[in-house]
């Protein structure tokens, strides 16, 4: 019994062990299966990845290519912008140069003409003096102040032809700056090669374009200043040296004519000499006119009775005139002049001074006049 019990007990133990082993085997099988599945899945993923590998390479290459293309396009745009900027500034510089050269040419022309006419003008003054000295004392006394006027004109002319004064016309402004050549493709590329992305590259390029723009604008600004200075020199010389002589001649001639007119009858035997003397004004004016013409300076065409144009007529006084309307020109007291510019236009060298009509009218008359 004991043996049988022992055997039964042993069998039972063996059965449990077997069951345990089977369970373990099952578990192992499960695990193995899972691992196999995982392996299979991994294999599959690897397979997929392996299958997709060329796409990744292409994409990666594409990204690189895209970046290169972006930078290429940025560089191209930058170069275009730079070139456009240089072209525009170069045009402005060329314009500045043309203006400088215009006023230099005009100055040279005027200088030559002044030198050419120098002796002639002084001869006319001298001649007037000689004629004056041959006149009888009574006439001399009457015309002394007029002759004084001519002598002053001669002295003003001598000052105008003084080398120091004349040289202002031809003193040339020195301009040596040039806009730097545009950056090369390689230089632009180097500039952005360390850029992290497109935005960064654009920012670097914008900064560089600003610097380039500033540098070339400074050159443009400088030439503009020189062009203005050259024009100012010409204007200053004309307004302080030549035009006051013309004014003196114009005012002297007008009054001298009146004086000679009143002397004609009493001194008819000296009429020829008086006319010859009076002719001095005309001759002087002709000489000066030739200087003006060569420099393309023209006198303003002003008609008595035309409306005042405040842009080129400077009123110095008013006067009533029943034949004319308010703010029409009654008299020109100082001639106005215009001078040609580099683009074949004319600009005001000096405003004309005029007396303008101002009638004090009753209200109703005023309305009529205005209508």
């Amino acid at each position: 019994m004991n043996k049988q019990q022992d055997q039964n007990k042993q069998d039972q133990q063996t059965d449990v062990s077997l069951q345990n082993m089977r369970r373990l085997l099952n578990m192992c099988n499960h695990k193995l299966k899972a691992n196999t599945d995982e392996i299979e899945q991994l294999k599959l993923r690897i397979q997929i990845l392996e299958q997709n590998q060329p796409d990744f390479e292409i994409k990666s290459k594409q990204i690189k290519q895209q970046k290169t293309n972006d930078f290429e396009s940025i560089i191209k745009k930058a170069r275009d912008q730079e070139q456009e900027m240089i072209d525009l500034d170069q045009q402005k510089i060329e314009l500045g140069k043309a203006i400088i050269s215009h006023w230099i040419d005009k100055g040279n022309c005027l200088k030559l003409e002044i030198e050419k006419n120098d002796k002639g003008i002084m001869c006319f003054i001298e001649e007037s003096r000689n004629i004056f000295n041959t006149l009888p004392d009574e006439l001399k006394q009457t015309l002394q102040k007029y002759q004084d006027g001519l002598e002053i004109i001669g002295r003003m002319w001598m000052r105008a032809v003084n080398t120091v004064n004349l040289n202002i016309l031809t003193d040339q402004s020195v301009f040596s700056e040039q806009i730097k050549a545009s950056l090369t493709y390689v230089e632009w590329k180097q500039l952005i090669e360390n850029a992290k992305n497109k935005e960064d590259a654009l920012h670097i390029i914008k900064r560089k374009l600003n610097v380039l723009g500033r540098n070339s604008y400074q050159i443009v600004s400088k030439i503009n200043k020189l062009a203005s200075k050259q024009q100012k020199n010409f204007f200053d010389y004309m307004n302080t040296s030549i035009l006051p002589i013309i004014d003196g001649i114009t005012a002297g001639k007008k009054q001298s004519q009146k004086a000679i007119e009143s002397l004609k009858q009493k001194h008819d035997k000296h009429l020829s000499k008086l006319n010859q003397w009076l002719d001095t004004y005309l001759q002087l004016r002709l000489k000066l006119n030739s200087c003006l013409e060569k420099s393309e300076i023209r006198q303003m065409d002003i008609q008595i009775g035309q409306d005042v144009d405040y842009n080129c007529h400077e009123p110095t006084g008013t006067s009533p005139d029943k034949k004319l309307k308010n703010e029409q020109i009654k008299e020109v007291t100082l001639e106005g002049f215009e001078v040609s510019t580099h683009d074949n236009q004319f600009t005001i060298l000096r405003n004309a001074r005029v007396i303008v009509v101002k009638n004090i009218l009753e209200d109703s008359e005023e309305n009529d006049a205005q209508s």
Partner: protein
Amino acid sequence: MSKIIEKNSGYVLGIDLGTTNSAVAVFKSGAAEHIPIEASKTMPSVVSVLRNGDMLVGNSAKGRSIVDPDNTVSSIKRKMGENWEKEFDGLPDKKYTPTDLSVEILSKIKNSIDENIIEGTAKYAVICVPANFDDAKKKATKKAAELANFSVLWLLEEPVAASYAYALERKRDQTILVYDLGGGTFDVTILKLNSTDTKTKRFNVLAKEGIPDLGGDDFDQRLMKRVANDLMKHSGLDILNLKKDQGISVNKLLEAQQKLKDAVSNAKHELTESLNAVIDIPNIVHDEEGAPHHIDNFELSRDHLNEEIGDLVQKTIDTVQTSLDNAKLTVGDIDRIILVGGSTKIPLVKEMIEKAFKKEPYSDTDPDTAIAKGAAIFGATLTLPADADTETIPEKPNFEFFVDNIVTHHLGIETFEGLFSCLIDKGTDIPEKEPVIATGHYVTPRDNMTELAIRVYQSSEQVEYISSEEVKFIGEFFLTGIPPKPKGQEKIIVHFEIDAQNVLKVTANSSSSSKSLEIKSE
């Protein structure tokens, strides 16, 4: 056809709205440059109205000052902020204030600017005003600019603007004195500046003074008189006297005066470089018999010029001394005297300054455009409004300006029986970032007052009564809703607040009334 949309320029203009002439500049590509107005460096600040109602501004308007003086206005800046009105014959339905006329001047400037230079339509501006402009004048100036369609980013004092141009020339840590002698006015300002820091430029205004009616035009008048006196000796004709019966028409005399003025002005310029100048004007005038008279070889030496204008220059020197005294400084404290304004080109000005203050003045900047350029530099550092719609956004300079200003007048209110109660003293420092605030405590002067007029005054000197000559009324408002109480029992609190641009705000409160009123800068 597509509509052309005008785009505003992102460049901030510096505008010197002068008494005689105005100028404009822009800071571009790292430098300030003046912008020509109708091909000139400056434009006359003159407005004239034709009979048909057309308005002329600038050179063309200046021409009408003789033909039609009644309808032509110059030096309108002197009237800014004042109760002044003008009705033109050609525009009978409207009364023009100084602000209205300044609008016309500023509009002309705006429309004359070459848009290629500023890359768009002019919009943003820094407008310069004299150092001694009071609150009302500043407000009127700002309003004029805004009506001219400018967006005013700042009202900058003229000498401060000039000092900006100077400070940017190189790094400087100095106390400077800006001597500004223009065609019609003189101003002096003492400032402490520090531009040594690359990013921050600091300015501290220490004193301001001025003579409102002294300038280069007075110098010309003196010289004209000298030459005309000589002509009178020879001819018996006094071309400067339009009233005396000389048998010559007024127009002929005016014509002669004009010729003399031109010649004298040329001689004055010549004397800045030479010691002698000769004036010749053949046939300047003809007497009643028709005989010509000339300015014949009139020698004008620099000594003559000095003799004529010496006393006028001395007045400016005295004013400089007053400003030094006000700042409690001696000339030893001044590192440099900066000359601004066209009239400072006259050698005597430099000589007298040098003699009086034992210091050679500095005049390297272009005195005609220094103010506009300084304003342009300052403008470039300012940030445009958030809603700015601009064609271009210019590169901003990598520096900023900081200004500590001072109050230019004693500021206060009228109290019982015309007493001037000063709340803020002249010369008080105004820091850049915060306004100066002062509070006055008062009580109602009569029983059962329910409203009270708050009248604001300024004074160039410390005074007791508002009736004093130095005192000027600058504004008023009514504080209403005061609870009726016996006199002396209701407290009235008045706040004054003034900022770095010297713009004053006044607020008043009664102790138990929640209502408060204020004078705003806009």
